[in-house]
């Protein structure tokens, strides 16, 4: 009998030892640019969010925040959720999340400034807290940052194990005149992200959203 118990204990230790403590969940933080003319693009953001809701699995985390004058704030988080482990509960959570986003999109007001860096800093903080295994920051913006007077965002990003993907980076009027501006803008963000240890990506064609998680 003692042998049996000893064997059972050894088996338990083995099973517990085999349990993987490494998080395999995915955390997605999506920043929505609500400034000026870009606010009209938010319907596209809804489609992206619906795609994300369809793809994310139980246990994953999703948060949506707006980019406005000062984005480094919890108040800018429009909706956030960590999906339940049970698929049926997770499905209901997704429905509720979708409703929250719909409500936000229908009532959103444009902001005069665009604090993308603040939003990214907030995303880093949130996803690190969530403890997700794979972290994605999606920036739905034209990447044109305009900070209000007095706002300082010259902080280097700490983005190891982060994937930062810019979505629907529209060309501005000036970009059409001088495409270098557009390229310089994109390059600037890419270098900022990569200097912080993150992976940079950009998807403008919304038909290729499946590249978000495959790249």
């Amino acid at each position: 009998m003692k042998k049996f118990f000893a064997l059972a204990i050894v088996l338990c230790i083995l099973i517990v030892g085999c349990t993987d403590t490494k998080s395999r969940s995915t955390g997605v933080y999506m920043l929505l640019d609500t400034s000026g003319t870009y606010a009209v693009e938010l319907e596209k953001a809804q489609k992206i969010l619906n795609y994300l809701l369809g793809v994310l699995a139980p246990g994953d985390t999703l948060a949506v925040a707006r980019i406005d004058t000062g984005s480094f704030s919890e108040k800018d988080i429009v909706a956030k959720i960590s999906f339940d482990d049970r698929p049926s509960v997770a499905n209901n959570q997704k429905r509720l999340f979708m409703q929250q986003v719909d409500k936000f999109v229908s009532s959103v007001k444009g902001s005069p400034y665009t604090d993308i860096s603040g939003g990214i800093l907030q995303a880093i903080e949130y996803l690190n807290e969530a403890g997700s295994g794979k972290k994605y920051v999606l920036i739905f913006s034209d990447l044109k940052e305009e900070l209000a007077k007095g706002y300082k965002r010259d902080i280097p990003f700490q983005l190891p194990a982060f994937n930062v993907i810019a979505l629907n980076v529209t060309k501005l009027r000036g970009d059409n005149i001088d495409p270098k501006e557009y390229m310089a803008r994109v390059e600037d963000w890419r270098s900022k992200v990569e200097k912080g240890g993150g992976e940079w990506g950009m998807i403008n064609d919304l038909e290729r959203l499946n590249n978000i998680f495959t790249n």
Partner: protein
Amino acid sequence: MTVANMLNLTASPALSILIWIVLFLAALYFARRPFHRAMMSFSKIIYNALRFTAASVLSAEKRLTQRNREVLMTAGLENAERMVEREFDRIGASVTRDLEGYPNVHRQVSEVITKLDEDYNESADVPPSLPNWMPIIESIAKIKHTGDSMVANMLAEINRSLNDQHKKAIEDYRNSTASRHAILNKMMPFWRKLEKSLTSISKSITNIKKRSKTVDHYMDEYEQIRSKSDRAARALSTSSLTQFAIAGLVLLIAIGGAIINFNLIALPMSEMVGGASYIGPYKTSDVAGLVIILVELTMGLFLMESLRITRLFPIIGAMDDKMRRHMIVITFTLLAILAGVESALAFMRDRIALDMQALRQTLAGAEQIGLSTSMIPTVGQMVMGFILPFALAFVAIPLESFVSSSRTVLGGLVAWLLRIFAFLLRLLGNIGFYAGRFIVNIYDLAIFPAIWLEGIILGTRGKKGAFSDAEILEDSPLVEEAVDSFDKTLQIKEHQE
């Protein structure tokens, strides 16, 4: 002073080359014998080493083949014993079923025969007897009357009485015959009953005779296996190979069933154990689903063992009947519960899948159309979830065949590989040996002018000094066949040394 200058022995380069060639040939000629010996020794080392290894491998192969044969025979004996035992069980059951009631049948037959005998006696044809005074009356009736009316009347009366009596006697006879016929009619069911009883006994006897013939057949096989004849070994080997192939095929089918079963329960298991936790690189829900299937397989295995269909666990087979019956009930109950659980999980899976489909449609912005409301797929999945565990329980049978046959099949395969390996070793040994000879010949070819000169000088072109062909061609005395005993191996080694 460069090397080129050193090589130029004379002013003429051609002469220098010639001198060098002559010197080189001379050096090679003087080194010929040591080179031959070294090369032959080296090739013999390779040859002997490889052939000795080949002999060892062949010895191992022989032992393995012998062991395989023993295992095959033991398995064959066990199987034959099992078959004979099963036939005896059947005969026992047949005797118990058919001949247990024999005394009863015998009594019934005896009773029927007694009854028939009685009826037969009762139906015996006894001619009716006329009254005793009938001959007297008959005599009187025969008297011729003289015309006296009184006598005539009397005689007429007598005649009438006589006729009446005859009529009555005939009537009685007819009645008696009718009653006998009635008795004979009553005998018919008894005859039929008797015939039925005898037919039943005949069938039982025929059945037992058939069984005894089967037992004889199995006993013949048993005897052949016991005598360890080659014929039996061949038959068993073929049978083992066939069993291996068939059992392997059935196991593959079972694995397919298990995979389908797994897919039925993996998703709903995430509702129970969560879909975000992992054990190693695998989802806990997947592992849980797999564990359920494996537990079902184990229960099926135990059930088959308890029913004595398979014999993978001798401890279960050796249990007393009461304990075994308990095992049967317990394992079957657990299996039924697990089948019920699977059925419920299959139902849950269907619900979750529908919910997911609805969510996807909502997210895509489409109206929720086309969602199946029919219960047929749900019921189908539930039925599959319930049936598959029981179907998987029968995997124990091919598994046993596979395990038992794989021992001999794998043994045969390893023996074959050893044979191939031994052949390759011997081939390499021979190649090594003849390569040595080839190099020696090439060497001689290279210095043929020197050898030719030697022939002219010595006048014996055919001789090669003390280096005879026999010495060159001498083969190793190492035996090629397998070496069985350690002593023999030692002898060979000593001989080599």
